[in-house]
């Protein structure tokens, strides 16, 4: 009885733990046993499944910032840098 209880406890994962392990999970930074444990939890937990999906969406959204957020180098500044490169490489 006690042993059964212990085994269950070891295998069960609380959602509050899952949200702290989600990055290790996404990074593949865990043993296959731990990974299987998280997968089992996800199999029976809609809240954590959604949480994981939202983390993935978050990562995608941060990746989208590039498109909007790049302040492009001006053409003049670019041409100037190329001129410096040309001059310097010609010297050496």
């Amino acid at each position: 009885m006690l042993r059964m209880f212990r085994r269950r406890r070891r295998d069960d994962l609380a959602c509050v733990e899952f949200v702290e392990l989600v990055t290790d999970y996404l990074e593949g930074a865990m043993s296959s046993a731990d990974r299987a444990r998280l997968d089992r939890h996800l199999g029976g937990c809609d809240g954590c499944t959604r949480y994981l999906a939202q983390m993935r969406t978050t990562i995608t959204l941060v990746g989208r910032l590039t498109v909007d957020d790049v302040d492009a180098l001006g053409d003049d500044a670019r041409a100037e840098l190329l001129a410096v490169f040309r001059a310097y490489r010609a010297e050496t």
Partner: protein
Amino acid sequence: MAGATTPYADDRVLVEALRRGDEDAFGWLIDRYDGSLRRLARNYVATPAVAEDVVQETWLAVVKGIDRFEERSAVSTWLYRILANIARTRGVREHRSIPFSSAAGALDEGAGPAVDPERFGTPGAPGYGAWAAPPTPWADEPESRLEFGEVLDVVRAAVEQLPPAQQEVITLRDLEGWTSTEVRNALDLSETNQRVLLHRARSKVRRAVEAYFEKAEV
């Protein structure tokens, strides 16, 4: 970015071309990294103008330093290190707090749970730990379309509000697409610390997006 299909995407080809004085290669390098360097520079210095100077100086150092570049590291890492050195010098001059120069506090700054503990019930009460207030669906998953610009504003603001070390890691990983190894090398972080910073950063950005959708629902 068209980078993946050009031969310059291969570091060895790129470095060799730069050493030969191939201007196209240098142009490609600028187009590929200038935006990234500029964004990263802003983590270190107070104003866009100073960041601009730092990036300019970085490119000059690249022109002069390409012959001494050791190909053990990636070109991206090398660029970043040059930028970080220049930016730190400038940042110190401006008395700005620097993300990694005194790493002691940097890791702990902005520590905290990924999700408000109260959402898992009453701490200490029986049954605590399972979702009491599980995440609700984000109206029209933002990837699809809808309010795209607005969501991105929220994400951008959330990233900007992160402590510097977290901001730097999430920018390099999720915005610039660096691998964890590249980030660790460039920032001199252990594998674990890199992951801890990334975790805190992503968790906070997720919370910001969640808050945005909860507000939008009303």
